[in-house]
């Protein structure tokens, strides 16, 4: 039998339907692959072997009875940010030491009820704070991609680094991920996978450990566009437990793939042409523009004038919300507790021991910008900037733009332990320069693999759409996928 892990969801779905193999066989193939490779890649922090086999058997039994869900028998990896009942859920933080929730997130509940199988929990940056997966309490994830000229281990991006690397290295058919400032799209771009951050409110946030509530949104990381469409359809839902989720029908995203883009207006924002942007990124962007022109789309130069304020404003809003969201990790009810003689020192010792450096930094930034005397100057102003960023997008969409094309990241994957970034957090934050605007405006954005750089490392292009028009992104994304083709890393793991 050929390696079952090579199949996309769409392919595996067809073969499971045809009876070529069972979910149990498919699941076993993934479990063996994880066993063989996880030590090298560190993408899984918990492998739920028994549960996976149980779910696969249940799925095969269902199938035998003719009950076939849209993800029937498909083995998935789940980012550690999603609450999974009775299973390790720690947001890759020490502070949630030994935490196993008594509840299941809405997104994963949707996946299981559509027939999917859970392989385990995936590594990530602690509390989703990071762009390299180096802030995880469980250590960094290694990107399956390597530079042509070096054997140095590279980061997979973050925060959904475990999700992206697992999908790229065939350790799951697809993975759940979350995106607060680029945490789906950036790692997808750095691993040649497809990552979509849907419109804010498209997926329920219930049961997802909160980082920045007004920005967090779940989405899938997959090997191709079609799998992305299949996954998003299952993940998305309105949820009366999340009042910020939106009650709109979930369309059949798959059917958008292959539709012509003739006459579609693709906006090219001049503000995304940053100073010091590598030529390779610029060239890739130009290539993308040509692909759309060739496909009959109309290329329109647009302006999103407040773009340059997005990253600074993001690094006020997100830490502010995080400082409050993470207050519940106090050692009182669950997770880590560092015993002490009084309550205040218990808090201090627990939080000092439980949170990593990046999380502590953001909690402190957030606390600062919300403090009396600073609130107006920082938080309130950042919110005003956010409104302006949103208005920038509304204006161009009102002028008839269907989707906006930008680079996904300012560079390809970098080395684990990159000293420049380790010594200057702002350099790390710049990874999100093209992606944060989308979160600030609550829009859908997708990163599609678009080629390799000179070192043979993947790069992605980003498409940004109107609210709840993810279909347009699948329709337009298909052009990049067709033109660029698919790239997979040479297996070394």
């Amino acid at each position, binding site marked *: 039998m050929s390696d079952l892990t090579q199949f996309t969801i769409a392919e595996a779905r067809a073969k499971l339907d045809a009876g070529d193999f069972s979910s149990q066989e498919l699941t076993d193939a993934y479990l063996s692959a994880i066993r063989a490779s996880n030590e090298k890649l560190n993408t899984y922090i918990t492998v739920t072997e028994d549960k996976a086999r149980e779910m696969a058997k249940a799925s095969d039994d269902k199938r035998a009875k003719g009950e076939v869900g849209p993800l029937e028998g498909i083995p998935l990896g789940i980012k550690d940010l*999603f*609450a999974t009942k009775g299973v390790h*859920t720690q*947001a890759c933080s020490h502070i*949630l030491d030994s*935490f196993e*929730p*008594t*509840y299941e*997130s809405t997104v994963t509940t949707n996946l299981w009820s559509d027939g999917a199988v859970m392989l385990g929990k995936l590594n990530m940056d602690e509390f989703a704070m990071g762009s390299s997966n180096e802030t995880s309490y469980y250590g960094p994830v290694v990107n399956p991609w390597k530079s042509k000229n070096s054997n140095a281990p590279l980061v997979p991006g973050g925060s959904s680094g475990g999700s992206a690397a697992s999908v790229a290295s065939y350790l799951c058919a697809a993975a759940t991920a979350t995106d607060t400032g680029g945490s789906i799209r950036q790692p997808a771009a750095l691993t040649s996978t497809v990552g979509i951050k849907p419109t804010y409110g498209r997926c329920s*946030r*219930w*049961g*997802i*450990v*909160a980082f*920045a*509530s*007004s920005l967090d949104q779940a989405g899938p990381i997959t090997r191709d566009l079609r799998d992305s469409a299949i996954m998003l359809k299952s993940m998305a839902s309105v949820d*009366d*437990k*999340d*009042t*910020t989720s939106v009650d709109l029908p979930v369309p059949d995203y798959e059917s958008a793939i292959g539709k012509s883009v003739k006459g579609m207006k693709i906006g090219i924002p001049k503000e995304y042409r940053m100073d010091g942007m590598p030529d390779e990124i610029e060239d890739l962007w130009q290539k993308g523009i040509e692909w759309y022109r060739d496909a009959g789309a109309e290329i329109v130069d647009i302006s999103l004038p407040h773009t340059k304020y997005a990253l600074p404003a993001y690094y006020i809003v997100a830490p*502010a*919300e995080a*400082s*409050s969201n*993470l*207050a*519940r990790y*106090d050692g*009182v*009810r*669950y997770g880590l507790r560092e015993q002490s003689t009084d*309550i205040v020192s218990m*808090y201090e010792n627990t939080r000092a021991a439980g949170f990593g450096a990046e999380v502590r930094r953001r909690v402190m930034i957030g*606390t600062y910008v*919300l*403090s*009396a005397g600073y*609130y107006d100057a920082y*938080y309130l102003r950042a919110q005003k900037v956010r409104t302006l960023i949103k208005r920038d997008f509304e204006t161009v969409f009102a002028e008839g733009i269907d989707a906006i094309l930008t680079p996904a990241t300012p560079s390809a994957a970098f080395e684990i332990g990159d000293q420049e970034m380790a010594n200057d957090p702002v350099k790390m934050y710049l990874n999100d320069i093209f992606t944060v605007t989308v979160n600030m405006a609550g829009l859908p954005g997708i990163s599609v693999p678009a080629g390799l750089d000179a070192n043979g490392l993947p790069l992605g292009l980003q498409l940004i759409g109107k609210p709840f028009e993810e279909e347009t992104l699948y329709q337009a994304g298909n052009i990049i996928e067709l033109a660029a083709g698919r790239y997979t890393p040479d297996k070394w793991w």
Partner: protein
Amino acid sequence: MTIVDTRTPDPSDFIPGATGDWEVIIGLEVHAQVTSKSKLFSGASTEFGAEPNSNVALVDAAMPGMLPVINEECVSQAVRTGLGLKAEINHRSVFDRKNYFYPDLPQGYQISQYKDPIVGEGVVSVSIGPDAKGGFRDIEVGIERLHLEQDAGKSIHDQHPAMSFVDLNRTGVALMEIVSKPDMRSSEEAKAYVTKLRTILRYLGTCDGNMEQGSMRADVNVSVRRPGEDFGTRCEIKNVNSIRFLGQAVEFEARRQIAILEDGGTIDQETRLFDPVKGETRSMRSKEDAHDYRYFPDPDLLPLEFDQAYVDALASDLPELPDDKRNRFIGDIGLSAYDASILVSEKAIADYFEAVADGRDGKTAANWIINNLLGKLNETGQTIEETPISPDQLGGVIDLIKSGDISGSIAKELFEIVWAEGGDPAKIVEDRGMKQVTDTGAIEAAVDAVIAANPDKVEQVKEKPNLAGWFVGQVMKATGGKANPQAVNKLVRQKLEVEG
């Protein structure tokens, strides 16, 4: 916020100091627990007295990834309360997070409303009195705002030598914080305001007002000044949980501040606690130690929005409120202001009164309730809800007086019997032969017998006509009080030829 002084200084409110008179300024923040089955943002029960930590939803315990969902019942209760306070209802309000660490606050923040509360300015009319002459003085206390917020849990410090326990049953229960303007000028006014506010909430059914269960508590802002001068520096006395303590706290605090000022000192703005055992307030934390709560809009909750139709629907279902009821009792039924005030003070009493007065003379019903029923309840320490005499039974007693079946004094006896034993008053009167004698023949015979037996008194009565009353008393005694006193009086005077 500019604070406007709405009151004219009244010397009768002044507190005399060693160096002259002082005026006390009081504003209150009343925390009233919303009457609702479940909590403000979770489905957990709000039942009082449950096993510790049994009414706790995942979101109340702040489990990772849990989200608040607004309980619409609490919203409508807040709007109803706003309407009852004749206040502006804000169609759009915002929930904010008030951040601080405490073990009984699992989220590390309280969800409250900061800049945009659900209810804006309103007013409460408060009657102060009755004074020695039975008079009332009406004042108006402005309402600054009403907002919805979560209650915290309970920390228990006496169960373990080194640890504290936490009970999260109250965590997340909906509170309305009702903020008054600094419109009160005496402890009496403050007490009357809270009493009136509680009455309104109970009429509306939006808070049970049970202060001993913690359903209502007040933070009291107190400052003093020389009459006519600007407001002084205030101190906030936290968590006062009875109306009596409220009065004591204000009295103590005002005098404490006056003493400091008269000694040439200044008042530090601070938060204080009232110690009911010692009857004094003491410092809890100074302004410098005040928390920085880092308020910001809760990103888990969209702004709370509703339209005027929603408000109108709630307004149309609002019960008659105490002020309207009081006016109706005075205007339509003809009760005195005093009687009407007493009857509307509790909705249950007003309801009782209206049941008794239905088809009967209102003033008689009011007299019986105020003088007899409430007196007796007060004696036995029972509430109107616990009364052993139903409105029907009391109405029955009144009916028997009206029909002339019993006299007023027999009626009082009958009231005691019904109180102690229950039963239908008419049947008791019948069974026990308590009916008054209206048969003139029988009364005449009794009168004749008394006259015949007391010839000396008959002589005396010619000189002293007042002695006729003695004969009436003797006849009443002889008939066991059942004779109609008017008929006896008339016959006695006829036969003794005394002018009546």
